[in-house]
């Protein structure tokens, strides 16, 4: 089934119909999306600032990442589910929107980066240091996640 048909199907689900006809549905779901955005952003910010050597330099980066990983995952899951609900409200608009496509592409790369290069960088940086590797990983991570956020904003504006 073509991708476009999946979007149409989503708009026809009970979720989609509810979201399209509810006055407050979108606002409520988006509020959850924003709360999760704050938490996810907070986790990424702290991890990347550690990789840059700006905060918690004397703490183990690995322990930090292990401590924040569940919070990151939980907020990511909330964002995905709330995101699907919001897409179900305007599925074809999202499908046609270049901002939405950019957001999904950047999201995929950002998440993939988090579980691979980013994780390795956290493991590689010993206490009290930041390396070229860790700083680069942090910069890329921050740019990717910022891009996801900006693209998300653009969906509603263009």
């Amino acid at each position, binding site marked *: 089934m073509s991708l476009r048909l999946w979007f149409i199907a989503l708009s026809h689900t009970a979720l989609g119909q509810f*979201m399209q006809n509810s006055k407050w549905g*979108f606002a409520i779901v988006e509020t959850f999306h924003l709360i999760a955005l704050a938490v996810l952003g907070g986790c990424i910010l702290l991890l990347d600032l550690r990789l840059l050597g700006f905060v918690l330099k004397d703490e183990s980066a690995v322990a930090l990442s292990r401590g924040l990983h569940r919070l990151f995952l939980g907020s990511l899951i909330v964002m995905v589910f709330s995101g699907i609900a919001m897409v179900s*409200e*305007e599925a*074809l608009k999202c499908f*046609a*929107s270049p901002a939405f496509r950019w957001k999904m592409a950047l999201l995929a790369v950002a998440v993939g980066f988090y579980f691979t290069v980013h994780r390795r960088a956290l493991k590689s940086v010993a206490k009290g240091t930041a390396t070229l590797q860790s700083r680069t990983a942090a910069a890329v991570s921050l740019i990717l996640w910022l891009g996801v956020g900006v693209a998300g904003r653009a969906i509603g504006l263009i």
Partner: protein
Amino acid sequence: MKTHIGLVRNAALAATLALTAAIPALAHHSFAAEFDGSKPVRLVGKITRVEWTNPHSYFYVDVTNDKGVSTNWGCEGAGPGALSRRGWKKGDLKIGDTIVVDGYRAKDGSNLVDARRVTFPDGRTVYGGTPGDGGPGDNGTPEGAPNAAGPAKH
């Protein structure tokens, strides 16, 4: 110039000489949540006020019905950035200009329409929807379907 209102509930319309100064800035993310796709409206009227504002623009037109009764209607459009990308500049609409607005009436019955297509005095038309937004006139393109005042198709 022929002026007419293509609307089902004329009585309700005539009964409300809308004091539309306080039309709420309904932020609709779903056309269907705020506006009624089964209530197409074609307004032909003189502009009384233009609010070229973020997050939504508003312009108000005085529409005179067959009985000579004048009603003020509010038309909600996109923000200035989105409008200018559609070739619509701030000064394009002047007080007293006669325009045609094809839109859909607010579900709460107020004299507010979601302006899907606007025809300027010089004949130029601007389509106000977004590709895929599901509102009437949406055919997945930025220009919209040729006749925006038709029923929504999904």
